[in-house]
């Protein structure tokens, strides 16, 4: 499935990129979520894929015989997903509050802090 996943990863990255380039805050959030998915899938795929053999050691056994999935990328992704969730949750609320405070979700109208006086 490598080939398909590579394409999916590309599409997710593309979609994320496209969405964070929109002017609407909500779309930017969606873009960030896409990028998160893309990164996770990227690590997962690049850590090499194994079907149907999770890294669980059977009861009574000491270790596993190949082939089995590399547990490390999984652990990394797990951490990344969780971190991503925390950050995303914050970002969603941030964007909402921004909309409430600024009164628009049009990013082109949020330039005051960059303006040259």
């Amino acid at each position, binding site marked *: 499935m*490598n*080939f*398909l996943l*590579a*394409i*999916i*990863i*590309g*599409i*997710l*990255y*593309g*979609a994320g*990129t*496209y969405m964070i380039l*929109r002017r*609407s*805050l*909500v*779309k930017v959030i*969606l873009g960030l*979520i*896409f990028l998160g*998915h*893309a990164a*996770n*899938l990227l690590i*997962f*795929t690049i*850590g*090499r*894929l194994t079907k149907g053999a999770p890294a*669980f050691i059977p009861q009574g*056994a*000491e*270790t596993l015989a190949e082939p*089995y*999935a*590399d*547990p*490390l990328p*999984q*652990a990394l992704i*797990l*951490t990344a*997903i*969780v971190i991503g*969730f*925390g950050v995303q*949750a914050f970002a*969603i*609320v*941030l964007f909402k509050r921004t909309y409430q405070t600024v009164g628009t979700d*049009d990013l*082109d109208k*949020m*330039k005051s802090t*960059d*303006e*040259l006086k």
Partner: protein
Amino acid sequence: MLTLILIGFAASAIAPLIYKPLKNYFGWIAASFPLYIFLSFLSKYNQIASGNIIKETIEWIPSLGINFTFLLDGLSLTFVLIITLIGVVVFLYAGAYMRGYEHADRFFVYVGIFMTSMVGMVISDNMMTLFVFWELTSISSYLLIGFNHHNEKSRKYALQALLVTGGGGLALMAGFILLSQISGSFEISALYNLNENIRNASTYSAIVILVLIGAFTKSAQFPFHFWLPNAMEAPTPVSAYLHSATMVKAGIYIIARMNHSLGGTALWQDTILIIGAITMLFAAILSYNQMDLKKLLAYSTLSVLGTLTMLLGIGSKLAIKAFFIYIIAHSLYKGTLFLVAGILDHETGTRDVSKLSGLRKYMPITMVTAAFASFSMMGIIPLVGFIGKETVYSAILEVDYWGLFLLAVAVIGNALIVMITILVGFKPFWGKLISTPKEPHEAPIKMWLGPLALAVLGLLMGIFPNVFIGRLLDQSAISIISEKLELTIKLWHGFNFVLLMSFVTLLLGIGIYFFRLKILDITHNFKLKKIFKPSEWYEFLLNGMMSFAKFQTKVLQNGYLRNYIIFILVTAVTLASFALFRIENALKITPDFSITFYEGAIALIIIISTFFVITSDSRLKSIVGIGVVGFVMGIIFIIHSAPDLALTTFAIETLTVILFVLVLYKLPRYLKFSKPLSKLRDIIIASGVGLFMTLMVLYITSIDLTSELKRFYTDTSVPGGKGRNVVNVILVDFRAIDTLGEITVLAIAALGVYALLKLKLDDRGE
């Protein structure tokens, strides 16, 4: 000597503490401190004059080769004595002059720092230490020019002086560093035997240019001269001290000091000669329509600085002698005249020469003082200025190729100086009295004592030149051109061509003075075109820099988030793709094309959902779509043996939906913002990013990965980690600290959400 420097800085620092209680005696107290330093160095006079050198090294930053290496030779001693002697006069004078000023205590801090730095600079043998002091003089000069900082002009010209001299300073530093690379040390004395190496070094020209830029800016040589007349915004004691007698000579000092190592080539000598000559003439001419006492003196100072530089450019023994005498003479009379100008300003309330006349009855002492200094400045026997000018002319006459031309330039320049002298030194006292803004009266003793002493000194030096100057002359020359002069100084050289020239100069000067007003009428409409004014170049550069800065900032920091993102992504993809395509066969990948039915279905669903989200016209649809994407991610994890990942993904997807749902209806509906063209641009960028990532994945998964880690974790999980779920053992044991960080992130995010929702301050943050 470091002790003296430290005392100097310490004394400057305590000035504000003792100023208020001791205000009435402050001039005397303040003057005692340069006097102390003066006397300390004077005590070394015999030692140095008899050909010894005093060297002292104290480690500072040895690993960079930067140390306090102080070296006292004829050249430095001469400068130290000038600096401190005039310091005594100026401090005493300022004690009275500055009384009316706000924060006069700060004035003494700045001047104290200046004087100490100036002393430090001329006795430093280590180029970087020298540079440190050099920059300190620039900074104290900045603070002093801007002393009347409520005045916009003061601020503006302080900045101008700082930028010009600061820029030159940077060049000087680079030059010093390059120079140090040749000798492997920052010691100037280490350069002494390396003349050949230095001149043959590939960096030689660069070094010369850099060092000279430093020197020229500091000594206000053409085309950097413009800051000096503008610096007259400073209180008069500052003009007398920094911008006439001492600081502006720092550049001259550097040329003299470096002449030994860098001189002897056409590049060095000719540059100095030409620039010096231009400055001499140009400055004198520029003075023709000035009416301000200080401005007039400033232009004459410029002219003298040019002359001094020119003399170093000539570089003959006679020229060095002239240089030496002239520098001393100038310091004495110009310091005096500035202080006189200050007295006039202080006691009458104006500095405009056209409004000053007939004051001789009211200020006789000042008048006498002015007269002595003026005679010296005009080069009238028996004052030291006379010897100076005579020697200068003699030295010029020695120059074979340029000689007569230079002489003409010198005569014209000096004639204009004569005119200035008459304007400053005589006109205010003679003729009919014109009423002045303040009722004129004689200055207090603190103000006239110093100038008078300097003026008298000028007379004594003229009469007994060998007592005062002669013995140091040879030692100084050794420092500059590494040979003794073996020339004696005499007041009277007999009736000769040079004397004739002096006479011509004087007559010409007096003539110009009397026809001055007519000349002014004729040239009334003549204005120098902007392009010929270096000060306009400065303005142009500064304004140009500002316009460009604004332009580039508006372009780059334009406020559009997506432009920032585009910058980042395009940079990333371009550079990374460039790096990727350097790989041979990067595109010859043979991926595994075998696909099962459900894999195809999964791919189809995730791709369609993605496009569904992108093209969706409603928020809720987008969220449903992205839910599907997350959901299919979970399925991919299941298929590829990652149940924990799948569990987590599903859980998080659901919670994200809940979050969205709680937030969403507070957010606006989608609006169609983007234009088709920008959509197209974004699609291209997005495709670039996607394509790059796809290629990376295909390429990397096609090569073999050998990781010891995978084996280790499964082998150790049960015996070491006591768990059969290897992923979980990694999370809570092998890499538990990752998890610790991860839960911290979560905690912070939650606190952040809480604070975001609860705390709502207004725009002032209250």
